[in-house]
């Protein structure tokens, strides 16, 4: 589904990603872990096409197409979803209105018929039930005055509504208490299917107790330095990122 080859990218002339290689297949959950400043969020931003970031080398194919050629909105249409670490607020714009616009724009892109108010509502109600989303949040202005947990739930709800092929979760667990993490993770697990994939970016192992990954990759200094099964996450939790750093040093010395 997603094939990243030797991806190099940076911001304002500073190189952050120094050659990322990663393949994600349908039905898989990948976790990317790494210490602060290793390039985790940059990877998410580059995949979504944030304009400030510049790709300086490598390629990304998404379902056989060159992802980097697409505008951010076309990437969404192609089925890429990013759950933001810091979702933005848009005062006065109702969350329902925003989601409806997004759903119909994406449907238009995919050649599907746009939903009228009645069918949109039907779909929204189903997903609200599935995701245990509070209706009151949807009538409020987008993310305005939402708590950290509410913002993240809103992200996952939007993911469910937009039905992406690949969902990138950028530190979705940051700033959440354990109950909120559980609710958000439940949403992600309900979304999972054999046809879609999840790339969970996180600093802490605890999210992976709830969203169990098939593969864990460690990002350090702009490169994936270690990949393994979910046990790798536990090992990191136990030993800290230092053991990775030390391993790298040893390799370099040898």
């Amino acid at each position, binding site marked *: 589904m997603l094939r990243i080859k030797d991806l190099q990218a940076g911001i304002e002339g500073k190189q952050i990603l120094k050659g990322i290689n990663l393949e994600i297949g349908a039905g898989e959950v990948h976790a990317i872990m790494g210490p602060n400043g290793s390039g985790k969020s940059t990877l998410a931003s580059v995949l*979504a*096409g*944030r*304009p*400030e970031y510049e790709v300086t080398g490598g390629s990304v194919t998404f379902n056989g197409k060159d992802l980097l050629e697409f*505008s*951010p*909105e076309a*990437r*969404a*249409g192609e089925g890429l*979803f*990013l759950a*933001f670490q810091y*979702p*933005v607020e*848009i*005062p*006065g*714009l*109702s969350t*329902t*209105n*925003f989601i*409806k*616009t*997004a759903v*119909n*724009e*994406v449907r238009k*892109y995919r050649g599907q018929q746009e939903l*009228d*108010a009645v069918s*949109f*509502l039907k779909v929204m109600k189903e997903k609200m039930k599935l995701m245990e989303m509070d*209706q009151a949040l*949807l*009538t409020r*202005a*987008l993310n305005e005055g939402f708590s950290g947990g509410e913002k993240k739930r809103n992200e996952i709800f*939007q993911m469910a509504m*937009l039905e992406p092929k690949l969902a990138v979760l950028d530190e979705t667990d940051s700033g959440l208490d354990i109950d909120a993490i559980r609710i958000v993770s439940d949403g992600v697990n309900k979304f999972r299917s054999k046809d879609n994939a999840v790339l969970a970016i996180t600093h802490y192992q605890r999210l992976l107790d709830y969203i169990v990954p098939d593969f864990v990759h460690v990002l350090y200094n702009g490169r994936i330095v270690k990949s393994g099964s979910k046990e790798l996450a536990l090992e990191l939790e136990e030993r800290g990122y230092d053991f990775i750093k030390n391993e790298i040093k040893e390799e370099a010395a040898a």
Partner: protein
Amino acid sequence: MKSDIYHQDKHIDSEIDIIEQTVSSEYKYGFVTNIEADEAPPGLSEDIIRFISSKKNEPEWMLEWRLKAFKQWQKMEEPNWAHIKYPRVNYQDIIYYSAPKQKVKPGSIEEVDPELRKTFDKLGISLEEQKRISGVAVDVVMDSVSIATTFKTQLSELGIIFCSMSEAIQKHPDLVRKYLSSVVPASDNYFAALNSAVFSDGSFCYIPKNTRCPMELSTYFRINAQNSGQFERTLIIAEEGSYVSYLEGCTAPKRDENQLHAAVVELIAMERAEIKYSTVQNWFPGDKDGNGGIYNFVTKRGLCKGDYSKISWAQVETGSAITWKYPSVILKGDYSVGEFYSVAVTNHFQQADTGTKMSHLGKHTKSRIVSKGISAGKSQNSYRGLVHVGKNALNARNFSQCDSMLLGDKCGAHTFPYIEVKNNTAIVEHEATTSKIGEDQLFYCNQRGIDTETAVALIINGFAREVMNKLPMEFAVEAKKLLAVSLEGSVG
């Protein structure tokens, strides 16, 4: 809750459809109708005023009233205190009277010239549609003359008078003489004096005691002829305990030269009466290089004459090269209420200096001002407001909120709030904010599949929501559409 969200969503649906439909369109009302017009020669003199008055078959008192205003105008200087710049208007180049020639004065909508009717169809106001479906009574003013008024018979059964100003002068001279210029005297300002001298038509509306007008009354103003000015005069009187909601829409063809629009609107609310006046102003704003467009110099004022009366202005200003207007309320009656809700959008080289005046004279009077200014391109957008509390206005209360949003870095937003308080029991509050559409907001929308143009429309509509909610439903839809069109190409 269920029905709530459904209702909300129906609203949303229309909002979005419209944004989609229109984000890629230009000023679409820029066409010219080819109808023969009956025109006065350009220029302004006593003779022209006599010409207008006799064309309209006016009584002697009306002619005298006009000539008196003209004399006052001649002594006045064009004001220059507003935060706008424009070349001097040569008042001798303007045509002060232009009427679409019709063979017979229409007795009903069906008799209106087919060319004219086509024009209004293009504007999206099919007179027949309006008549049949929407239940909005419409008066249409093209160039200087009122073309048609719908629903007259139904309204007259309730004793409501809704007709053109010319007709009112003929048929209801007592009311006109009593109230015309009672709120905006000819001597009030330069443009009010000019309007009084040369106005050729407008709408007149009278709601009798304890009557709730069952439908929205609406006037569409259209400037068609070249080099002509439009000077309409609107007078609305709401008697004791009555209610009326009035809508005003404006468009003009695209022309390279500037055209002048100097209207006067007067509202009078008696005891416990309520007047709601909504405007969607979409005069041609000039092209993206700043050529052409309407100069919109308008005096609008309401008088809360009786106790417990209420006047509410709601406006969406997207058009005109220059907008200069301050819909105001004089709160004379005790416990009277004045409101002003405004969204003003400027793009390219547009300039707007708009706001309101709330004069608290009576006791326990209240006013509320919500102004949302949106500037893009190289435009200048100013809010100018005055809250005045007189020495007898015990316990007056005002709340003002002025929010500005900037798109890009070549435009300007300015706020000039003036407060004069002569009674120390008054409570006057003013809040102001300035914001920009953030890159992160746009990217967030983009990531959800929404392109930048649509994202801007969503963000702007969110910003203006409080005011949009004050507009009648039919108008809200049109207004949202206008916001999207006006800001097209302003980001990205």
